[in-house]
């Protein structure tokens, strides 16, 4: 086992997809608590993608996205990223804030308030995802303070892609849809354990 995503077997892929399913389910529950209402969830899709395809999935390399990134420490080291299209981010923030709180009058950009809500949503969703991974693998996973950036998808995704790039030419991406009253938005998780941690995760899952 060389810790390469590229050589992942079907069974490893299936198990990681299941972890993705459970993690996304947990994340949705956490979001529902935050919003104080029911949150619908679509079936998550898990894909092993080439770097070149990563940004295409999120609307192209120049599409504006919000990325929340944090570092993993403890028994699993690496990074975890949560990405939303900017338009989806706006819909999500609308569940929590009034229109005039989201954008400053006459401004294109998110207000400080909207940004901090997104920051917190990212933090909660990633936390929920990681806590299922931690439970399933019995590994202790701690996370750093999250960092957020709003920019072109290609630029945001270059950060996890570079980390994956040290291991191979593909990245594992989990797309999950959630929202309220049929207004589903897509969020994307990208998990980037370092090579050793990846082996540890597979081993803990009995693979």
């Amino acid at each position, binding site marked *: 086992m060389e810790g390469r995503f590229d050589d992942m077997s079907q069974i490893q892929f299936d198990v990681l997809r299941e972890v993705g399913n459970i993690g996304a389910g947990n994340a949705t529950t956490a979001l529902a608590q935050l919003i104080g209402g029911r949150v619908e969830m679509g079936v998550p899709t898990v894909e092993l993608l080439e*770097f070149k395809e990563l940004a295409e999935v999120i609307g192209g*390399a120049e599409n504006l996205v919000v990325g929340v990134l944090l570092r993993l420490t403890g028994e699993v080291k690496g*990074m975890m990223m949560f990405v939303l299209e900017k338009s989806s981010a706006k819909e999500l923030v609308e569940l929590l804030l009034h229109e005039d709180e989201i954008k400053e009058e006459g401004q294109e950009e998110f207000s400080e308030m909207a940004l901090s809500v997104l920051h917190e949503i990212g933090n909660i969703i990633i936390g929920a995802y990681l806590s299922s991974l931690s439970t399933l693998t019995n590994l202790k996973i701690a996370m750093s303070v999250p960092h957020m950036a709003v920019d*072109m998808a290609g*630029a945001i995704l*270059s950060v996890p892609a570079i980390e994956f790039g040290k291991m191979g030419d593909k990245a594992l991406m989990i797309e999950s849809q959630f929202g309220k009253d049929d207004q589903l938005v897509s969020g994307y998780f990208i998990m980037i354990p370092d090579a050793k941690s990846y082996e540890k995760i597979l081993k803990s899952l009995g693979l």
Partner: protein
Amino acid sequence: MGKQIKVGMADLNICSSPDTITTLGLGSCVGIVLYDASIKVCGLAHIMLPDSTQIRNNENVAKFADTAIDVLIEKLVQAGANKSRFTAKIAGGAQMFAFSAGNELTRVGERNVDATKTKLKSLGIRILAEDVGLNYGRTIEFFPETGQLMIKAVGKEVKYI
């Protein structure tokens, strides 16, 4: 009007006037343009990592600053360019997330830029212009007809270097 050639992440290609060559959304990656002005031929690489010798799985030559530049030169020479006339322009190498400074993991943009400069210097290729670092993404397009590199960023004016 020529056509526009697109270069993806960890990818490279060459182009001659009147065509143009572009790569979208450079973050911590670096876009490296090599240019032979006398025949208006250029090459563009979108590299992700500084050094192929530090990585075990290094078959993708376009992924690394060192190997991508070598391959770009090879391709340009095959296309009739003269190595002694090459000049370079580079862009990218941003730090997209504000993690605490000095962390090896997050300084990769800076290391990509350093590795690119070192490699070009060792080959005697002069860097005519650069737009690197800071904390935002860039889309770049090179026009071999004029030798100009266009740089677009979110919320900023388009500039040419």
